[in-house]
């Protein structure tokens, strides 16, 4: 028994990798629908905010992530855009992470096409600008001072979607999807706290615990945390997609990790008595 346990404690890490591949891949091939998600107040905060905005009002979305965080942030960004377009809000997109420019454009274009929205009238993508703190500060007083043209090179001021908008203060709501710095902390410090507009965020799981205090102080309207938060948002808008499908894999992955932690600790304790 002791020998077996000692052997088990020195298990080749590659066997664990194979187990991880199995538990993540299995639900993709055969969906299990294990989890029934009920939206948490943090996610519902964002949903309720969007629901409360009257039709035709502008919302601005900053897609501050790159392809490395796509699996976590892409589904929630898609779900949020779908919701905004469904509510007939004017959507203004931008980003602070240059490698994510293509992704951001893709999210807006895809969801706008689904909803039958027109570029320049119902939505616009302003693109990327460097120096986040300067960009946000400038946008707080005059958006066109930093974004004279959109990503496609058209004059932003003359677009119908920008009608009546001069600065961030004219936005009904600001939503940020961020994977780090620059991200929501810059948006709060240089944007919402300073100019007084409502802001919410969608974050990666790693950043979620760091951002919770901003929710507690009311500096954030809501927080969509990682793929679980995205799945909750998909449930709220009644449009299940990739995040909902991914919850089985994440759930099984967590079970495996829990099992391995228990097994590892159990072996250490057992070896002390053998």
């Amino acid at each position, binding site marked *: 028994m002791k020998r077996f346990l000692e052997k088990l404690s020195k298990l080749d890490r590659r066997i664990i990798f194979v187990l991880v591949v199995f538990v993540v891949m299995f639900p993709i091939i055969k969906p299990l629908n294990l989890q029934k998600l009920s939206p948490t107040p943090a996610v519902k905060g964002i949903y309720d905010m969007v629901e409360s905005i009257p039709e035709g009002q502008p919302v601005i979305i900053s897609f501050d992530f790159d392809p490395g965080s796509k699996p*976590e942030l892409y589904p929630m960004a898609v779900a949020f855009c779908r919701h905004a377009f469904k509510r007939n809000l004017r959507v203004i997109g931008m980003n602070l992470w240059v490698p994510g420019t293509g992704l951001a454009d893709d999210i807006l274009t895809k969801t706008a096409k689904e909803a039958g929205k027109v570029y320049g009238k119902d939505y616009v993508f302003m693109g990327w600008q460097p120096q986040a*703190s300067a960009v946000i500060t400038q946008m707080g007083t005059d958006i066109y001072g930093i974004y004279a043209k959109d990503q496609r090179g058209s004059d932003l001021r003359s677009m119908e979607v920008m009608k009546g908008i001069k600065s961030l203060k004219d936005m009904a709501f600001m939503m940020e999807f961020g994977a780090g710095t620059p991200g929501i902390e810059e948006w709060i410090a240089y944007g919402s706290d300073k100019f007084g507009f409502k802001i919410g965020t969608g974050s990666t799981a790693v950043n979620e615990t760091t951002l919770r205090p901003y929710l507690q102080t009311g500096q954030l309207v809501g927080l969509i945390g990682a793929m679980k938060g995205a799945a909750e948002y998909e449930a709220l808008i009644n449009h299940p997609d990739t995040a909902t499908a991914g919850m089985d894999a994440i759930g099984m992955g967590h079970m495996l990790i829990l099992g391995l932690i228990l097994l590892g600790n159990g072996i250490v304790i057992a070896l002390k008595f053998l």
Partner: protein
Amino acid sequence: MNETMMILGAWIASGLTLFILSFLYEDNPLFKVAEHLYLGVSVGYSLAFTIFNVWWAKVVLPISVGDFFPVIPSILGLLLVTRLHPKHSWMSRYGFALIMGYASGLAIPATVTTSFLKQVEGTIQPLFRLAGTGAVDWNWGVAISGILLAVGVISTLFYFFFSVEHKGVIKKISRVGIYFLMVYMGASFGTTVMGRFSLLYGRFFDLYTYGTPKYSYASIVMLLVVIAVVAVFVRKGAKNAQENAH
């Protein structure tokens, strides 16, 4: 995007994902190829984007129509490059002075308000509220949460208070702070695990999708290629090790 490009994209994406994942078995040339490509493409994309969206749009175009204001920040920016030449590196100080002054002026008041004052305000929660009639509006959840928050913040601050020796009451309070820190770290680790599984799911979902007939079984073929290359590499490595031993 036409179909050929879509299939080609699937082959490249699945191939590079599997090249990177092959490192989990052992370091190999395929992993190195993918790693260098990733770095190169990221830097190239960012550089090209910066040249066309910033340098071209905000410097060259305004100057070409007679607006010479961008010349001043451009010169200050170019002065930063003098850091590369020790004899002339003093010139970079003008650019750095502007950056430091501007960034500090912007960041210090904003950070103090956002990350300190507002957080202190959020930490001091009332245990109960008085309703309009003067009656006490008591909620057990709010009260317990408020007490827990206060105890957590104070005890954790004690743990990081190094001006006095940690013994007696201070030691006990800082010990409570350690437990709160452990809870925070546990929560952080838990969410990190969730994040990593989300990333893995995202890649595997794409690999599964690209393994279908629609994408000419890209993932499956690339997986076989990766296995074959890694096997050859491992065998070669073992042979070399054997020869060196002799």
